């Protein structure tokens, strides 16, 4: 049982390049999330998904796109990389939403460290 896996671990992009960060979970979780973590800060939600075919914006969605064609996979796409997108990106999944009173645990992947130069 691998949990949540992310690839690549590290990546350096030039301004204007595009890339896809991959995220896969093998726990059959309906809910999946993408966060970014800037130095010295907590995590901020970029996008989330409540199931295959359904996605929605989080707090900081600009410059990113997502898709959810299967339960297992939730890739994050950067179309035109900018230096402001230099960050560590975490994917997470849960079997239920993190709503008040339904505090389901989110399981996190190891992260992708992205640098845009």
């Amino acid at each position, binding site marked *: 049982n691998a949990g949540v896996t992310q690839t690549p671990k590290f990546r350096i992009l030039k301004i204007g390049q595009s890339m896809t960060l991959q995220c896969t979970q093998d726990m059959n979780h309906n809910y999946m*999330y993408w966060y970014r973590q800037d130095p010295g800060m*907590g995590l901020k939600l970029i996008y989330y998904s*409540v199931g295959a075919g359904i996605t*929605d914006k989080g707090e900081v969605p600009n410059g990113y796109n997502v898709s959810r064609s299967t339960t297992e996979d939730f890739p994050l796409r950067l179309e035109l990389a900018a230096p402001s997108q230099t960050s560590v990106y975490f994917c997470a999944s849960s079997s239920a939403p993190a*709503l008040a*009173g339904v*505090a389901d645990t989110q399981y996190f992947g*190891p*992260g992708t460290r992205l640098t845009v130069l």
Partner: protein
Amino acid sequence: AQSVTQLDSHVSVSEGTPVLLRCNYSSSYSPSLFWYVQHPNKGLQLLLKYTSAATLVKGINGFEAEFKKSETSFHLTKPSAHMSDAAEYFCVVSGASGSARQLTFGSGTQLTVLP
């Protein structure tokens, strides 16, 4: 709206002494609260969570936290620090907002354990 404030960005303790990491929250709802730990170059791992059951919550590795509604606090404690506890700790609040979903993270507390 909801928010989390971790009152200390850095805490240093000696091995074997108690740990206290402070967290205050605000929420329009009865919140659920979490503490996550992040070791260097690793993902986040859940330490414990509060979901409106017992106000004193026990977690992994000897950590516990007490939910105090009157003080809007959810401080994390451990009686005796171990070197392996050195990591970054995040206090997190969840709430309901329309169709959401989301957790709000504090800015983190870096715990250093001195030999």
